[in-house]
């Protein structure tokens, strides 16, 4: 119901804005052209950050949009193919290091030092442990993640894969594709998988 009201509001605004004068594709093209002239490269943030891959392009729609089934499947298939599992076959690292990575929100902003490793900032969007009360709600709660799922091989592979490329399992997910986009290293992703799955981790207490 809420979604309907919001969609109606945006639709009404769009109609007033004059859909008829500019098609959706034309508006997207025009917006990209405007954006390219509206940003300056700064530090590590170059203008190529505006070059969208297929998923970014297809997912640039209001959150309530229902994409065609074929589109969803295409996005998930392409992203699934991008996942590289560790060569040593080990998927779980050290949850203590994982906790630090989950707390750290720096990395890839033009204001960040590119020589320092990026964080994952999990707590910005997810509840993870009982101790940390400063957590966001954009993503689901991950409290007791491992306790609820166990630590079988398939669970480990799904968890590592989800961190590596969230859109392999949910097209247009809000979650960054940490491995696919080179935000985190293999070791960092192992440490985060351990934070979620290790029975000793605060997530599972």
């Amino acid at each position, binding site marked *: 119901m809420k979604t309907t009201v919001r969609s109606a509001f945006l639709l009404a*605004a769009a109609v007033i804005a004059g859909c008829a004068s500019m098609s959706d594709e034309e508006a997207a093209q025009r*917006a990209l052209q405007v954006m390219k002239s509206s940003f300056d490269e700064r530090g590590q943030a170059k203008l190529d*950050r505006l070059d*969208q891959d297929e998923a970014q392009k297809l*997912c640039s729609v*209001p959150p309530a949009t229902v994409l065609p089934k074929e589109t969803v499947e295409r996005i998930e298939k392409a992203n699934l193919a991008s996942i590289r599992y560790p060569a040593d076959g080990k998927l779980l690292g050290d949850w203590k290091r994982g906790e630090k990575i989950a707390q750290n929100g720096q990395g890839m902003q033009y204001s960040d030092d590119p020589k320092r490793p990026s964080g994952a900032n999990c707590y910005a969007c997810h509840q993870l442990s009982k101790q940390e009360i400063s957590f*966001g709600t954009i993503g689901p709660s991950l409290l007791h993640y491992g306790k609820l799922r166990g630590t079988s091989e398939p669970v480990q592979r799904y968890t590592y894969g989800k961190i590596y490329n969230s859109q392999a399992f949910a097209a247009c997910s809000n979650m960054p594709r940490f491995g696919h986009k080179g935000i985190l290293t293999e070791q960092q992703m192992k440490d985060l998988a351990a934070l979620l799955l290790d029975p000793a981790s605060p997530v599972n207490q």
Partner: protein
Amino acid sequence: MKRRSTRWILLAGAALALCAATPSFPQSAVDEIAKYRQQLQDGNPAELWEARGEDLWKQKRGPKNVSLESCDLGKGPGVVKGAYAELPRWFADADRVMDLETRLAHCMVTLQGFKFEEAVKRPFGNGSNRSDFEALAAWIASESKGVPMNVSLSHPKEREAYRIGEKMFFFRGGTHDFACATCHGETGKRIRLQDLPNLTDRAGAQAAYTTWPAYRVSQGELRTFQWRLNDCFRQQRFPDLKFTSEGSIALTMFLAYNANGAAYNGPAIKR
């Protein structure tokens, strides 16, 4: 002034006490934050920027040594009351859509004789390096207090700006795939403990847009809507949004129009 400083020291103390208290009282943390925000409403240093802005508006400045008092913010030369509630808008003399900061830069160039690069060299202040834009915007916006937002899409260029701004809002890019909509597309979400307005919803857009410019306690600075957009894009891992760029105006148009109908309520004070 002295009383004001004392009050701020007390508030800073209260904030520190709150920080220290939070971990041991997790249940009441959210209540405490609400209380802190309530306390902030008690006094707003934005008034200092507003006073300086009014002076700047009336001062003879620039190579031509004239004031900005004949600057047309959309309601006729020199009319400041209610002007902010109708911006951005299309201006016939420039044949383009402008937001407040862009229009001010335009007047600094055309009336006062500044070179554009010179006029916009300090869009955002930092300590003693103060920005004239932040002061002017604070004062001009304050002259719309209580006036319902009434942004028009009657000109084709205004409609085009809205469409571009809307596309920008949902545009996912960069290393983290973030769009404005990632954080501001759903109701009732928060990042860490910070509530996020849903800007695709009329009530959310109204509540958020009508409070900018705002004094940011964490920065000790008054910030304009141009700053708000610039810093959102920094956190989105995008490059640096250019001050008064076409894209910045288009996105402002999208958000300002969505806030139509709500009384302008700034400059506000924020954490």
